[in-house]
């Protein structure tokens, strides 16, 4: 399925060999017509930039279809010259360049350049011994990225044959091997090659020659987990809700009564308990989920539906009951958040709006109010943070603006000054009502909601600058929480570390070691005092999905070992490695 360059039309290739054109209308799509149907399943499609032609790749051939007439104007066999013609050649990816050149990536590992009008092969590059699966062309059409089934991606560049000359040819330049399995999707941004594979990794490889300054963009990024909170915690009920793509799991935490020293593993007196698994209906993925702090409400949302459940724990048994007559939301929720007293639910929605539902015993809900930014907003809200006293709500929309609402009077309170980066996490301090914001460029801000301005600590951090090691970290902060016992403590975590930020301690400068916990342990008490700084970092748990403070002396940490899902992956393509 590919949209045309203007975004007004959608072409869909079908198994039966037909290509269907849909008109994109506000709020949906409308079938327009069928294009010329030929035998052979359509595996890939590409529009010409002008929208006049579509090229459709099939097994052993691809064809060029004129959109206006709907007729196939050219049909080219791709394995014409290959000796081993018995094997079928699958065209996995195709691109139609504005110059009229068709680029095909096939199962023989070739990237071929065709002049479709003449029906001739211009260039052929065998990039891999296994199949080439995906293809993406840069905006300028001078660079192509190809993903293969061995997990390698290759860049092809259109380079002048002679320096300063007009004649150009495609040259395979940079190979990257960051995936272990099929690279199913690739994208070409102006400064980076992006690839996603079957090994559940997203890799962003910057093109150093295009990156203007050294910064976040200039470093290779690998993502295994989404930068979203996938786990929610009912603090009081000690429940954890895990969000999977098709289902939710509710667990009761185990506990121990023993105490021990640092590093010891204590025997649990009560084992963690899998309470219930809640499968979502239909093929849709779960977009967001939440469990209320009291543990009695569970809500989730897919792309089309929003569901709310009432959890009843009677003794050992747990029952889930769907809350009837949940107000229909269109589109459904982008983020769900229960208030601290579990009496209301905040639903982040499109156009910057936040719906407030009142939760009713014994199992009902009522739409209370819709909060909206006064100036209006086209982007959806994706992060919510209610205050513990139920007075405030902070909402972040896709345009990165943070709006703060007063929940007592359902009014817009203020906007946090705009910052040029996406917000990755935010939370309101339970006692001071300071909003702590973590941005994707690893900057930290503290904004006082009552005073509508940044706090002096935040100003001090900004003037001083954060430690370089902190700023060069790979993954953004995904969750912020606070220590009720010590208001100066802010607890943060990303995929690789959890950090206790102690505002009472001095900030580290670049000359000191950021991760100094292990060295501190070896120092005597007096020397330790001098070495202390605000960032207390623990890297023991990796990769870290979730961390929350249950009560004053209990912290829950959810770790998802990479090997857990690596072992579930299918076997990688066998490759002979030298020296093995």
């Amino acid at each position, binding site marked *: 399925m590919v949209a045309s360059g203007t975004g007004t039309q959608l072409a869909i290739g079908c198994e039966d060999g037909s290509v269907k054109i849909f008109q994109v209308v506000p709020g949906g799509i409308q079938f327009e017509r069928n294009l010329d149907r030929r035998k052979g399943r359509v595996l890939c499609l590409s529009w010409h930039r002008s929208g006049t032609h579509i090229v459709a790749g099939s097994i052993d051939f691809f064809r060029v279809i004129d959109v206006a007439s709907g007729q196939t104007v050219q049909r080219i066999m791709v394995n014409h010259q290959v000796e081993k013609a018995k094997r079928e050649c699958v065209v996995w990816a195709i691109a139609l360049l504005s110059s009229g050149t068709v680029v095909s990536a096939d199962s023989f590992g070739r990237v071929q350049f065709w002049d479709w009008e003449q029906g001739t092969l211009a260039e052929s590059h065998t990039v891999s011994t296994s199949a080439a699966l995906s293809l993406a062309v840069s905006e300028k059409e001078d660079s192509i990225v190809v993903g293969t089934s061995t997990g390698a991606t290759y860049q092809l560049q259109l380079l*002048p044959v*002679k320096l300063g000359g007009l004649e150009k040819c495609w*040259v395979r330049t940079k190979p990257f091997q960051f995936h272990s399995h099929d690279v199913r999707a690739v994208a070409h941004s102006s400064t980076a090659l992006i690839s996603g594979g079957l090994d559940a990794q997203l890799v962003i490889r910057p093109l150093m020659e295009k990156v203007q300054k050294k910064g976040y963009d200039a470093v290779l990024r690998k993502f295994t987990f989404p930068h979203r909170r996938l786990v929610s915690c009912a603090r009081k009920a000690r429940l954890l809700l895990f969000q999977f793509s098709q289902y939710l799991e509710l667990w009761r935490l185990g506990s121990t009564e023993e105490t021990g020293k640092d590093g010891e593993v204590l025997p649990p007196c009560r084992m963690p308990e899998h309470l219930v698994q809640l499968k979502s209906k239909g093929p849709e993925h779960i977009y967001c989920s939440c469990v209320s702090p009291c543990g009695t409400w569970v809500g989730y949302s897919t792309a089309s539906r929003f569901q709310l459940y009432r959890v009843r724990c009677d003794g050992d048994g747990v029952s889930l009951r769907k809350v009837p007559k949940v107000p229909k939301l269109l589109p459904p929720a982008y983020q769900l958040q229960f208030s601290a007293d579990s009496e209301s639910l905040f639903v982040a929605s499109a156009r910057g709006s936040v719906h407030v539902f009142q939760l009713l015993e014994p199992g009902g809900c009522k739409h209370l109010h819709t909060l909206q930014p006064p100036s209006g907003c086209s982007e959806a809200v994706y992060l919510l943070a209610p205050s513990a006293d139920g007075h405030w709500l902070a909402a972040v929309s896709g345009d990165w603006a943070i709006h703060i609402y007063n929940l007592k009077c359902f009014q817009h309170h203020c906007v946090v000054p705009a910052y040029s980066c996406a917000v990755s996490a935010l939370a309101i301090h339970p006692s001071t009502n300071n909003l702590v914001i973590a941005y994707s460029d690893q900057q930290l801000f503290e904004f006082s909601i009552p005073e509508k301005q940044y706090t002096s600590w935040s100003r001090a951090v900004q003037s001083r600058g954060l430690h370089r090691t902190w700023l060069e970290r790979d993954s953004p902060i995904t969750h912020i929480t606070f220590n009720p016992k010590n208001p100066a403590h802010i607890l943060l975590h990303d995929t690789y570390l959890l950090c206790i930020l102690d505002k009472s301690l001095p900030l580290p400068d670049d000359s000191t070691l950021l991760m100094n916990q292990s060295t501190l342990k070896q120092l005597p008490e007096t020397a330790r005092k001098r070495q202390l700084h605000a960032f207390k970092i623990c890297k023991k748990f990796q990769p870290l999905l979730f961390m929350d403070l249950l009560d004053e002396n209990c912290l829950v940490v959810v770790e998802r070992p990479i090997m857990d899902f690596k072992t579930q992956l299918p076997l990688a393509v066998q490759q002979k490695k030298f020296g093995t």
Partner: protein
Amino acid sequence: RPATENIRILTESSYFLGKDKSKFLYLLCASGDFVKVYSVNTEETLRLMGGHADLVTGIQLNPHNHMQLYSSSLDGTIKLWDFMDGIPIKVSSLGFYLHLHFYPLSGPHSSVLLLVSDRFFFLWSDTFQLVSVKLTKGAGQDLESKELSVVLDGVGASVKHIAFGREGAYVVSVKDVTLQVYFFKRKLLNRFSLSTVKTKGGDNRFSCVVCHPTEDCIATGHADGKIRLWRNFHHRKEYTYSTLHWHHDIVMDLAFSVEGTRLLSGGVESVLVQWHNESSCQKDFLPRLGSPIEYISMSSDGALCCTLHTDNRITIINSNLRFSRSIQGLIKSRDVKTGLVVDPRTKALVLNGEPGHLQFYSLQSDQQLFSLDIVQRQYIHQAGLKQSDLVKVAFSAQGTWLATVEESEEVTDPELQLKLWFYSEETQSFTLNTRINTPHDNHITDMCFRDMDELGDDSLILVTTGRDCVFKVWVMVEDTDPEGKSAHESVSWSCDFVGSYHNYQATNCCFSEDGSLLAVSFEETVTVWDSLTWDLKCTFCHPPGNIRNICFGRLTCSKYLIGATDYGFLCCWNLLTCALEWSAHLNIVVLQPDPLSEHIAAVSWLSKESSLFVFKPNEPRPLYIQRNLCKEKILLAAFVPRDEPETISSEKYLWLRKSQLFFLTDTQELMTLSTKSLEERLTPSSKQLAVEESLPVTPFSLLLGKHRHQQAQEDTDLGKPVVHNKQEQASPAVKELLHTPAHVLPSASFLCTIFINSLLISKENKSAEEVADEVEMESEKADGDSDEEDVTVMEQEDTSPMELLGEMTCKLSKSQEKELRKIRKMDYSWIAAF
């Protein structure tokens, strides 16, 4: 002064194939101080172009005339040669340059050369510059070129580190991890650096660079075996490269095909890899080339390519990557452990060749006769792997038996094998007769056969000495079950006697000429044993210091035993009196007796120079001394018997009459002492070859050849230096006759007289006396030299060295000189009579 002939190993050389219009392919190769011209079709050396005083560092065809060749040398000169005739056309001296490679640029930069040099003598900092030099147009012998300009700084010294781009538009230089591109027209210098960090076995240092012939693409080889193809390198930022990776170790050289569609690469794997269309998926291999590839070169028409290997071999390969032929001189092995041994049968020099092989090298033709696989195991090119190698070799007197010792490189526990090979007349090669595992418990230090020509096979005895403090005597025994076996298969070798002396390590062994005595050295002591009863006859020692070498005197001097010790003493013991006859204080490293005469050659190593002493054991005075033979340490020497005794005019070289002396230095250069000067040796051969080549093989040419041969024979019979001017007079007429097309030739009657005249032996222009005089003059000079040297060298019981020195420095009057000459003349006639 005698000229020392260097047959250098091709370690630092570049070469390429040139093609002339007559479809005759030449391969040009810089070899030591010479440029060699090989015929690709016949693999023969056509010409040897000498004249450089030091190592030739680069050769390049003249882009304006493909029959001309530029060569550069460490002596600071550039020569332009006509390589068809081997004549230097132009010599440009650049005085202060020490190290040069150069590239003549074509196109707009006509007659501009680019050189790599260390112009300011920054020897210690190894900074080399790329300099352009404008050569003067005129032809002449010694032209000074002063128009210099520096193009690039800090370039690599090797010829592989610099390449010229398409049509000479830019020059590329690599060094360490930096690539520099200089565009001549735009005067733009781009510098690209790779990371120096060695991750996951990666090593980004550059090893070589070549440029695509038609496109703007640079191919670089790297130390970790990667090949990078650079493009868009006129952009400082948006340059890009792709990587090809097959080699597991350093890429030694790269070459593009003429069209640029194929790229050849080679390295230590001894595999030539051909990459198609710069794609890493399409590649072909030519494996098992024998030894690491050092250089790769394409012929100008693209039909052939050749690889130069580290063991001094050139392999010529077809364009379809099929092995075509190889040009093989002396194979350079990693370490010559066997010593220089002469095969009595073929008179070939025998030493370590390929790993585990024994090479038979013909000195006359500078070719390998054959290679005998001794170890018979696959050699794996991998650093740190302990593999078996051949360490000792010995031939019996007739060359019918060959004994070899191989050991693994383990120091503590060498796996030893002694193998005895018999020469089979049918197969014309050696066949394995006996294999003895662990003949000694420790390294074998020496091995020799009892050389007795007259007694036949039954008296054949092999003695081995080992560090396990014993020497062992091996004899042939008849097999008890000789069924269905030929005479030589029915024998095998077994140990007959084990001797030891005070539990000292046995280091050397040697039989006397008649085979009755065996001398074995045990650390400080030489023991002499009766070879019949194996009784210890007597012992000699010259403390302090272990015995390094021993040998018996020969012929008239067979009663002497010579030994050299660690502490720098050369001793001669009389076996009849069992007493020290004489000794001299010399640090002898090589002691080599001539098998055909009484002479013994000793090479000393002192203060970074090797000196040669030739002496007879019965005289403590050396016959011949050559100080400062070469700067390298001479490790081995061998006397090779001449096919026929050479006529030697000067008394000084009489000891070279029957055999020729060869040396091998620690850099594996094979050298010999020649009695003729360099020019004498070079010119006749090259001229002869030129004429012979142009002659078609007809009955007439055969007649002509015969005629010439006779002439040469006469010359040699006269016992005088060969006078070649007769031939030279004759050849133009003959040449003219043969080269002019038939339809433009004058009538046969006209030509007849000229032709007949050319065949007649013209009378000598010079009178016999004059010629004799000239010879005398030479010999006198030579004598004077040798006297002088004698004086400075002798430290033995010489009587009047100091006075002699004084005499030689004062000048003689003309009359005195004449008188002296006359006396000398008389002396000579005396010697000649004997």
